[in-house]
């Protein structure tokens, strides 16, 4: 590092650049006061995610302290079991859903656009909406704790314990509804990150020159897209069972409690890799900077990341080794669980090799990364132990597993996160972290953590199960629990010191210069703290290390030397580029501040409260209002006055994306359909699973699905789609003659189709409360109805937009997006028909 902290910080407001800065701020500026609720900018939203996550972390940590205090000595019950059960459930739930994923998503939202040379994420209002869903969902969940009716059946909510019979109160509903609400934010962030990384990289940033962090986040985001929907479906099904009596997990009526476990862990296992991968991404980003050389084996790391992402979906049953599944089936999962250690090992040794062949400097973040390494390796090894089925049978559901998971989660996520917080502190706040206080924070946390959890492996081996509010003396558990509890206080002290340290130095630390760590990635080319628009001009890149290649890049960018350096057209703009080559294809225009995200999320929160208090009519009303709000929000797109009515671009620049046939919206639709498809496949899985494996599966004697009407509905959907596709094809050829008429026709077909679906329901003899068979068919029909109704509504809106002049030959983009939804609807109509009507005919004969 040269000098104290390198060159003086960028001050965009000074000099010639100052005029341009004002021009940009008129377009990109963040309002204050109440209007701050309308901010959609990724820097603010990402930062808010992290701050909120930090608050939830502290609350979750407090719950852990209460738990450890109770368990310090045998026979304690100052926390009676009902309160204790709420505490450990909420500790897990808050940490996993309200801290781990949101904080890392927030960091990704903050960093990704800057690292890929973009000005914002690709759906800014969606990020803001996700944030508010997260805040409201988290608040609802914590409110339940304050009211003493928090979920109390463990963070995995196994049925039948969490069913209506054994948890008659609203506790479980808070989890099911609140967490689903929060998951909307996770899935929407996932969709957005995929599309942003694929389509808005700066000129010349090929897949091969993309920062590793972008690969990690791309993998994480795709895992969220496929991994969260099974839990969303499971939660919907359980809530339907609890509130409306539709059996899915009730044995007597043909359900199976193990189905819940499958749906939960199909999500649950990828979830922990969703948490680990971004943290490993942080390590892969920081290590080369502190080793002062590029990472060793970029391709190996990408290979490992992709492999881990896929394989992690094949491990879920290792959480269920004791439920009585055949050994051979368990062995598949055991093998896969061990194999996943290999790509992880490759990453670890890539980091090691980078250090080995570099010139390491030891700053604060490196302390935390070293701590991560030690703890995570230990945790990974106990994980491989747990993958061995005979050993698993002894330690499953004991404190050994608690120790393992804290090693991998705290070691594998918290430590890299803190390393990242120290590393990017100068970026968030413009000030450098400390040297002395940070060491105290590290050693207290590291020492306290190991004191708490190392001996806990023994506690589990000595036979102490999980989730017990107290224990008897004389079993050998007394001293290990005391040690763990003392350790937890030491760790808490460490966490407090770290937070204090970050706060104090974030506010009052020494001012940082440009690129104080002499890093290679683009985020350090913004001002610190960053301006809302990130870069005054968007530079081309030609290598993985733009700032090592050209250390004066930050100043050059700020002088407006590169592309898209004006904002007098009033639009927020960034590049739209080819996903592989980084060749610039469009100018993507982005929405500015808006009330829609906040208000829509608020109304959805009201709907959740309605569901929780069992005021279903009120909830339905709120759902209707939120739908109207969401649709009205979608109206302000493309050529709308509030979006980009003026399609003129600078000479030499490509067209606005909404005037082409490709753009973020199309990609967003595809990725959303992937998530939707994952949910649908989980439902399909549930259907086949119950049919083949449920202990008391029963076909109601007089169950009948009105299949002719259903066939008609499917045919209508396929027909509507086919018409739509042809019309879009003609639009591509430049013809918008009769577009509006065609859309009205297609919308009408959609309406008839929805009516036909409703008629199918009426014409069928189904008793959804009596058997799982009928319950699942009912859910299928509801799913189809929802989707086809949305298809109709969206097509109607398109017709109206053509009439208003927002869609047509010159702005042809949106019908292409809606056509994909029709394709999906047609597909699921057909597949459901085959699964529900055709397949039983064949299976019944067996």
């Amino acid at each position, binding site marked *: 590092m040269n000098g104290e902290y390198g060159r003086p910080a960028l001050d965009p407001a000074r000099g010639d650049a100052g005029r341009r800065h004002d021009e940009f701020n008129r377009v990109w500026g963040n309002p204050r006061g109440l209007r701050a609720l309308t901010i959609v900018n990724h820097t603010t939203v990402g930062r808010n995610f992290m701050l909120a996550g930090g608050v939830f972390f502290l609350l979750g940590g407090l719950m852990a302290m209460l738990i450890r205090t109770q368990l310090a000595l045998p026979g304690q019950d100052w926390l009676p079991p009902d309160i204790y059960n709420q505490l450990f459930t909420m500790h897990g739930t808050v940490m996993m859903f309200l801290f781990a994923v949101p904080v890392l998503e927030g960091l990704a939202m903050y960093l990704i656009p800057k690292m890929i040379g973009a000005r914002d994420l690709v759906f800014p209002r969606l990020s803001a909406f996700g944030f508010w869903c997260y805040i409201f969902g988290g608040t609802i969940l914590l409110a339940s704790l304050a009211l003493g009716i928090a979920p109390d059946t463990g963070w995995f909510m196994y049925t039948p314990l969490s069913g209506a019979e054994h948890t008659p109160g609203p506790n479980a509903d808070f989890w099911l509804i609140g967490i689903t609400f929060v998951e909307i934010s996770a899935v929407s962030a996932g969709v957005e990150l995929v599309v942003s990384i694929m389509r808005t990289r700066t000129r010349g940033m090929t897949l091969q020159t993309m920062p590793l962090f972008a690969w990690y986040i791309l993998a994480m985001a795709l895992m969220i897209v496929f991994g969260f929907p099974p839990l969303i479906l499971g939660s919907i099904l359980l809530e339907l069972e609890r509130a409306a009596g539709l059996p899915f997990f009730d044995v007597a009526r043909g359900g199976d409690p193990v189905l819940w476990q499958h749906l939960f862990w199909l999500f649950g296992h990828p979830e922990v890799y969703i948490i680990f991968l971004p943290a490993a991404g942080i390590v892969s980003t920081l290590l080369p900077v502190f080793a002062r050389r590029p990472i060793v084996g970029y391709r190996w790391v990408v290979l490992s990341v992709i492999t881990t992402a896929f394989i992690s979906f094949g491990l879920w049953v290792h959480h269920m080794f004791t439920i009585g599944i055949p050994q051979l089936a368990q062995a598949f999962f055991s093998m896969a669980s061990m194999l996943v250690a290999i790509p992880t090992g*490759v990453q670890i040794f890539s980091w090691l090799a980078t*250090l080995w062949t570099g010139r390491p400097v030891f700053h604060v973040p490196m302390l935390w990364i070293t701590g991560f390494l030690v703890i995570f390796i230990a945790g990974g090894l106990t994980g491989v132990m747990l993958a*061995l*089925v005979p050993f698993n049978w002894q330690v499953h559901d004991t404190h050994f597993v608690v120790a393992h998971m804290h090693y991998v989660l705290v070691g594998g996520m918290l430590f890299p996160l803190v390393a990242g917080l120290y590393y990017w502190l100068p970026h968030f706040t413009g000030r450098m972290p400390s040297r002395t206080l940070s060491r105290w924070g590290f050693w207290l946390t590291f020492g306290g953590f190991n004191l708490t959890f190392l001996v806990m492996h023994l506690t589990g081996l000595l036979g102490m199960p999980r989730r017990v509010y107290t224990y008897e003396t004389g079993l050998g558990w007394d001293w290990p629990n005391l040690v763990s509890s003392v350790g937890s206080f030491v760790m808490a002290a460490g966490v407090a010191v770290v937070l204090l340290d970050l706060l104090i130095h974030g506010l009052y630390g020494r001012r940082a210069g440009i690129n104080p760590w002499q890093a290679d990635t683009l985020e350090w080319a913004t001002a610190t703290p960053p301006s809302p628009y990130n870069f005054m001009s968007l530079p081309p890149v030609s290598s993985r290390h733009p700032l090592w290649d050209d250390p004066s890049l930050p100043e050059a960018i700020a002088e407006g030397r590169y592309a898209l350096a004006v904002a007098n057209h009033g639009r927020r703009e960034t590049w739209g580029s080819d996903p592989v080559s980084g060749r610039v294809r469009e100018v993507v225009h982005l929405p500015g501040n808006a009330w829609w995200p906040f208000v829509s999320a608020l109304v959805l929160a009201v709907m959740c409260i309605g569901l929780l208090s069992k005021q279903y009519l009120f909830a339905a009303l709120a759902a209707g209002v939120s739908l109207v709000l969401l649709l009205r929000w979608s109206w302000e797109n493309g050529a709308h006055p509030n979006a980009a009515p003026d399609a003129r671009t600078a000479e030499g620049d490509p067209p606005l994306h909404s005037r082409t046939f490709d753009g973020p919206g199309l990609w967003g639709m595809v990725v959303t359909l992937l998530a939707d498809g994952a949910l649908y496949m989980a439902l399909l899985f549930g259907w086949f699973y119950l049919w083949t494996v449920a202990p008391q599966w029963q076909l109601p004697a007089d169950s009948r699905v009105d299949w002719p009407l259903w066939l008609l509905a499917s045919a209508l959907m396929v027909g509507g789609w086919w018409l739509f596709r042809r019309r879009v094809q003609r639009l591509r050829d430049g013809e918008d003659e009769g577009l509006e008429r065609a859309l009205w026709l297609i919308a009408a077909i959609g309406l008839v189709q929805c009516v036909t679906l409703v008629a199918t329901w009426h014409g069928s003899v189904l008793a959804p409360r009596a058997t799982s068979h009928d319950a699942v068919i009912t859910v299928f029909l509801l799913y189809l109805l929802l989707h086809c109704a949305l298809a109709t509504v969206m097509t109607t809106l398109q017709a109206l937009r053509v009439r208003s002049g927002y869609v047509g030959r010159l702005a042809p983009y949106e019908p292409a997006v809606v056509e994909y939804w029709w394709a999906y609807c047609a597909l699921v109509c057909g597949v459901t028909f085959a699964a529900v009507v055709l397949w039983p005919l064949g299976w019944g004969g067996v």
Partner: protein
Amino acid sequence: MAGGGRTVFDVFFRLLLPAGLLCLTGCDGPQSTLQPAGDAARVTAALWWGMFGVSVLVTAGVTLLWLYALRARSETPDAAQQRRAQRWLMMGGGVALPVIAIVVLLGFGIPAGHGMLPWPDDERPPLRIEVTGHQWWWQVHYPEAGVTAVNQLHLPVDRPVDLHVRSADVIHAFWVPRLGGKIDAIPGRTNVLRLRATETGTMRAQCAEFCGLRHAHMTMTVQVLPAPAFDQWLERQP
């Protein structure tokens, strides 16, 4: 710039100290997996110690490599040295080490698991016991003898026993750590657990799947008796 202000020894000391205490105070207890009194538990405990030893070595080894790699140096190794280091570390550590570890683990683990399965034996059929989990107590039924007990399990020593485990309400888990692994009691299913006790004495079982308010108290006493004493006990029951 100096290293982290602490030495390698510090890191080690912190890691080993709790581990050292482990062996001093002993690993015994009426519910301890490390004081086996049955076939399955013995095999698993042996597996544990093997895995534990290897894990300590691997953790220590990689940590030492890391700390060594962190040492300050003024010049980068030359290109040939770099390539060699990369190849050894990435292929050796990243691929070969985990693969070898997995192969060794499976080499011991598969036979271990194999032996624990409830293989049918027509010549000497195992004793059949039916266990039903309730909120929050255990019902133990001996179908041949027509005997039912509550929160007590009596077993003959040296004889394989098949426990048919069911649940009357929510998911529980039946577990006698000193004899073997656990099996879940799931409504709608009957799961079979094979155990064979090799030492007489008293030990504990505890429900190992969270089942509600009094989950922590859902324990059971397990008495392993010599065969004649066991038969006598059965006869004495009403």
